[in-house]
């Protein structure tokens, strides 16, 4: 039975269409996955369902009733609870109190009676606290019942978010990136927890996460969003091998460069600038060295034990799923985020903990995500800002030689330029500061593929001028075409390092880091049954779970795996047999 029916939802913010006629269906008892690159509209869809954002068109039905004009708190009372990506616990309240708020919302309690503390109110209070304790117990949070939510580490806070959502006695929980900032082990435990929660509380879930090992492990069915549209839908195994999905996550392979044939790796990476005699893989003393780096925000530890090296005139790419810690690594290197542990060396000197301006002054330029430009400033003035880094007036004509297009637009305000041109301005400004290393974060975000390719060619120009580049990139294909080496980030650490050419040949390794390699391991659960044996016909199995002793149920499940059929089908067959 369809529990949540989203039909043709359309949302636009200013000129940007965030969701373009998106329709999804969620069945009772199902864990539905929703994935997609950054800015695909996943959180906007969540906000539409929980009522925080009003869609411009389209309808949402929950349990057969329209949610049109229903305020958020009323939707919550009807059974839609949610968790938040950026941890929205009530920090100055204890865990018990955090759980009590949604519980009270279900009952009717009077403010005046509460203030007077009358016996009825106190009775209700005791009942609320008992139930809150019970939920905390199930999620193994008893030990923290009276701690303030804000004092707990982020991993536990994520679990409290789930506990609080359960306190609402929901029919559906919207989970917004519950695995963000968790390491591999914690993510595995989270997956087990979500399955246990579904068993015990009989809730359906809609799950958004960038961590594919989690999504692949728990979801029954998935939708893929890209640029506000449904790109694909299907079972996790189908999605993982869907060409369109892989392209949306990794970028299209360059049509001019045929995919690397096995064993013939070397010639393929001969991109344009290789001909000017740069050595295939630069060696020598590292320009940038990072040892055991850890950093985070507040209670959240985003990266831990990151080790990487960039040599002079080398392009190094950091790739990996969103939330794997790439951006935070760049920020910790350039001093925007204070490292909590580890050391950063640049040009032979220890720069750990120095201020961003001093680090920039040493020749380390950082182009942040979103480019870090001032929209009302003209192109020329923006380029002249580089003078602050060099200490003397820079000559913008040097930059115009590299980027002729900018010369035509030198007096235009940066904000009026196209996205690709803005990125050129950012690169040109970095170039004028005469850096030894440029760090670029998500250069291609929101840009068309052809422009992305032009920009990446610019990076090789920087390399030919002896400048090293460290880049973070979602479009892995383009990044690996230009890069010499790459680090693959997973769960907040740089797990794997390899020459870019090898990675290009071994597409499976990359798509594993984005689309979940954990479930490919031989020990993993057969994807058809998706780890739970009886996921296929949930409603039927709900009935069976009441009436069939566990031993019989297990026998059915074993037979299902042996014969490769669904447990529901076998159960039905047996039931038919009993009837006759």
């Amino acid at each position, binding site marked *: 039975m369809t529990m949540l029916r989203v039909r043709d939802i359309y949302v636009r913010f200013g000129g940007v269409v965030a969701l373009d006629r998106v329709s999804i269906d969620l069945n009772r008892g199902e864990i539905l996955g929703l994935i997609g690159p950054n800015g695909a509209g996943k959180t906007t869809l969540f906000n539409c369902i*929980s*009522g*925080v954002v009003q869609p411009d068109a389209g309808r949402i039905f929950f349990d057969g009733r329209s949610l049109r004009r229903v*305020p*958020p*708190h009323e*939707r*919550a*009372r009807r059974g839609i*609870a*949610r968790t*938040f990506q950026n941890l*929205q*616990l*009530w*920090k*100055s*309240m204890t865990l018990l*109190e955090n759980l*009590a*708020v*949604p519980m*009270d*919302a*279900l009952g009717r*309690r*009077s*403010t005046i009676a*509460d*203030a*007077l*503390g*009358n016996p009825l*109110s106190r009775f*209700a*209070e005791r009942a*609320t606290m008992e139930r809150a304790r019970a939920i905390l117990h199930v999620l193994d949070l008893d030990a923290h019942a009276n701690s303030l939510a804000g004092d707990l580490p982020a991993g536990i806070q994520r679990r409290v978010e789930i506990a*609080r*959502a359960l306190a*609402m006695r929901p029919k559906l929980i919207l989970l917004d990136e519950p695995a963000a900032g968790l390491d591999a082990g914690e993510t595995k435990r989270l997956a087990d927890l979500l399955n246990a929660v579904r068993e015990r509380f009989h809730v359906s879930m809609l799950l958004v996460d960038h961590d594919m090992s989690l999504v692949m492990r728990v979801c029954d069915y998935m939708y893929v969003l890209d640029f506000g549209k449904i790109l694909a839908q299907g079972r996790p195994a189908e999605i993982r091998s869907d060409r369109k999905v892989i392209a949306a996550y990794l970028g299209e392979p360059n049509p001019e460069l045929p995919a690397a044939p096995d064993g013939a790796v070397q010639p393929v990476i001969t991109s344009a600038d290789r001909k000017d005699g740069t050595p295939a893989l630069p060696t020598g003393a590292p320009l940038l060295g990072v040892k055991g780096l850890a950093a985070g925000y507040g209670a959240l530890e985003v990266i831990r034990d990151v080790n990487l090296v960039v040599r002079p005139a080398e392009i190094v790419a950091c790739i990996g799923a969103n939330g794997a810690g790439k951006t935070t690594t760049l920020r910790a290197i350039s001093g925007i985020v204070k490292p909590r542990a580890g050391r950063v060396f640049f040009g032979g000197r220890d720069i750990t903990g120095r201020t961003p301006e001093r680090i920039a002054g040493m020749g380390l330029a950082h182009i942040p995500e979103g480019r870090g430009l001032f929209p009302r400033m003209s192109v020329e003035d923006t380029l002249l800002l580089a003078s602050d880094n060099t200490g003397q007036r820079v000559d913008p004509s040097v930059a115009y030689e590299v980027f002729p297009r900018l010369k035509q637009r030198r007096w235009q305000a940066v904000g009026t330029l196209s996205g690709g041109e803005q990125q050129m301005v950012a690169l040109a400004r970095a170039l004028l500061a005469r850096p030894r290393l440029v760090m670029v974060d998500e250069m291609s975000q929101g840009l068309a593929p052809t422009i992305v390719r032009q920009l990446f060619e610019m990076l090789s120009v920087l390399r030919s001028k002896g400048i090293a580049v460290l880049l973070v990139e979602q479009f892995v294909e383009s990044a690996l075409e230009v890069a010499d080496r790459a680090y693959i980030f997973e769960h907040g650490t740089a797990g794997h390092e390899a020459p870019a050419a090898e990675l290009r040949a071994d597409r499976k390794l990359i798509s594993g880091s984005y689309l979940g390699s954990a479930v490919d391991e031989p020990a993993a659960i057969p994807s058809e049954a998706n780890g739970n044996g009886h996921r296929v016909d949930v409603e039927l199995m709900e009935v069976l779970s009441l009436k069939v002793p566990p031993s019989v149920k297990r026998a059915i499940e074993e037979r299902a795996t042996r014969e490769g059929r669904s447990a529901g089908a076998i159960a039905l067959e047996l039931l038919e047999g009993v009837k006759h």
Partner: protein
Amino acid sequence: MILGHPVRLAVAVAAFLMLALIPAGFDVGLKFDAALSVVWAFGILSIVLLTGYVGQVSLCQATFAGVGAYAAGMMFNTFHAGYVVGIVVGVVAAFALGVLVGLPALRLRGITLAIVTLAIALVFDKYVFQDHIFDWFSGGSGGWRVDGANLLGLPADSSSHLLAGYEVLLALFVLVALLMVNLHQSGAGRRFRAIRDSELAASTMGVNLTRYKLLAFGLSAGIAGLGGSFYPLIAGSVSPQPFWVFTSLQLSAIAVLMGVRYVPAAALGGFFMAFVPDILTRYGHGTFMGHSYDISYDWFSLALGALLIVQLILLPDGVWGDLHGHVAKAMAAVRVHTQRRVRVA
């Protein structure tokens, strides 16, 4: 026990008895200060509820007190109602205005909301309390005179029975303070605090933001209005000056200074706001080591500003908040220490 924990109740009764008896030995000026300190304590208590509990900003709390004062004065003077009726009308009027002021708070927050409420304080000061159009309400620029009032038969005229008004008001303050502490621990208090910590999470977890924000503004204004409605009784008259914009700002500043999340801070703040300026003007002049000096009322604002800076650095949770925390920690340490000694023995 209806009013919460018995120990808390006992402490409240003891505090009331002590505070009610002390001013008997004061001269008339200090007796008036004592009564005024409870009026301002109500004002700060209203900020504890609105800002400390619910996280909303308002810079027009003195306006709510003023509305209570003028409404009570008008009821007594033009309608010749008993003063108790005046108090009830004053509280209801302030509550209603509070709900109205709360309407913009449904959309605005932070600095924008602060400026809107500041504008309301300015408008009421200039165009309601002072202006002639509202003479029917404000009694003209001279304000209302209140003579020979009684509270349900208890003579409470300001010239002869100043302390009667003070004691009734103090009793009400202790009562409302106890209710506020109960509210903090209760379900409604949790919903208020949930709004303070994250509105987004509160609304998606079933808290009706519209209802609870308006309720918070209404209750807060009602509390300020209750204190204000006693002002004409204890001062013998009501005029615009005590309820002008600057008083609102002072109330907010002192609430932060004393600890905006704590009910007892309201009592400290009221005392500070009523007594310190008067003592400064009384004893703030003379000669010291051959130099004559003169510390006037202006010094009060200066001192308040300086104290606020010191407090924000040294006691970020306010005077009561931090000192109370230290004392509690010290007590716990002593308890652990004594227990250990007992076990050894």
